């Protein structure tokens, strides 16, 4: 087994192997939990409200200024007869995904662990016909986490 016969054997061994191609739009490769798509807000499943308190830390840290944050008093706080321990909570939140450069800085500066990078395919398939469609509002940003699709991962 040498010379050109060996090259024939090599190609035949690839012939017997399974193709590595994936039919992308129909089947998706499983993404690793470290996959970094666009930032999304996390949903507190126990208190039934976002973790985000609207502290503007991420907005100030964002190098491309793609975020807009508005804070309000939490209507469900204990002082007004609710259950929540959060005095302030997020009112409105926009992220312009057309500007975001997925640098992960917002995740690192957040004091409440309220923002994280989307590690599902929904964070990648974001093509749109208009730039305005890329601006995400609060329900959109929360939906991935709220639906339990995000894979748990601790950023160290």
């Amino acid at each position, binding site marked *: 087994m040498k010379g050109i016969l060996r090259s024939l054997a090599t*190609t035949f061994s690839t012939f017997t192997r399974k193709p590595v191609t994936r039919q992308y739009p129909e089947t998706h490769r499983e993404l690793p939990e470290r996959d970094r798509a666009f930032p999304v807000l996390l949903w507190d499943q126990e208190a039934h409200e976002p973790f985000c308190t609207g502290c503007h830390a991420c907005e100030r840290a964002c190098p491309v200024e793609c975020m807009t944050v508005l804070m309000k008093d939490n209507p469900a706080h204990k002082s007004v007869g609710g259950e929540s321990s959060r005095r302030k909570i997020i009112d409105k939140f926009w992220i312009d995904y057309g500007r975001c450069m997925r640098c992960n800085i917002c995740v690192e500066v957040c004091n409440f662990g309220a923002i994280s990078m989307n590690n599902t395919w929904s964070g990648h398939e974001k093509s749109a016909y208009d730039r305005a469609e890329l601006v995400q509002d609060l329900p959109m940003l929360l939906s991935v986490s709220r639906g339990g699709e995000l894979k748990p991962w601790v950023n160290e």
Partner: protein
Amino acid sequence: MMTETLFGLPTGVDAAIRLLIVVGVMTVVVMALIYLERKVLARFQQRLGPTRTGPMGLLQSVADALKLISKEDIRPKNADPWVFELAPFLVFVPTFLGFVAVPFTIAWQVRELELGLLYVLAVSSVNILGWVMAGWGSDNRYAILGALRAVAQSISYELPLVLAMISVAMVANSLNLVEIVRQQATVPNIVWQPLPALLFFICLLAEMNRPPFDAPVGESEVVGGPYVEYSGIRWSMFFLGEYAAMFIMSLLGAAVFLGGGAWPLGEELGVGWQLALTVVKAGAIIFLMFWTRASFPRLRIDQMMSFSWKILLPASIAQILVTGGILVYNLPSGLEHTLLAVTSAIGVLFVYTAINRSVATPRPRPVVLVRRSEAAR
């Protein structure tokens, strides 16, 4: 089909029906071969190949054909109109003519010719004229360069091919393809004549400009060679010719070397089994072609020429001399065939070693160290 006319029809009608069958079958076979080549080659590269058109991409060839037919047929301003437009026919018609004598089963072929082997080889080499016409008529430097390469290659590989076939015909004592098939009922010719089988396969690749002998149509060198100015239906006729030639030559190989429909089940078997056997054997040869395409890089034109003239041609001539030398003594059949097999196998080893020597990694040149005192001077 027997040599008599079908259902006692007049000869003209009978000929027309046979013609229609040939053209219909060939078109379907060519489309199937293009699909199979894409699929098999894809698997060799761990890809999937066509999957989008129809289930498993089965309709890919149909889609391609429709696209090619509906494309504009462009003729360059400087092209020679007659030569340019007739060239695809000259590539495509001779290939179909070869279909006349090739036996599918022992009883089924268009016509049983006494000189069938010679006829198929002769007809299948006419298409080189079409290549030259395509190269000349296009008035394009790449086209003429590719055509000249094709001619040089075709002439140099035609010789060993025919000589190898002569040796087989000497052993079979016949040029009638049906007779050759019938003689292989117990042992196929590849056992007695392995060297001609190897030469046949190599020359086949070169004749049809298949990789690794595809320098005449190399995209990276001559941008497709003679095809460069063709588009639409004329371009697809070149491909029809190429794949039809592939099918016919592999049928020929199956008949001459692998025993066609006769081996290993004998000729008393039903026509359906014989047909299946022939197609499976031809399919094996075609698969081997796909396999070599997936395995070997393209040869340079000078390597290709020296391979033919320095290795294949001497080997085929030596094979004829040895075969003739053995046959002339009228030895008992067993001894004669053993001698044939052994000498031919030695020839195979010779050719294989020659190929391996030529593809072996050259030893690195010895580095001449310069002494520091000399370098300073």
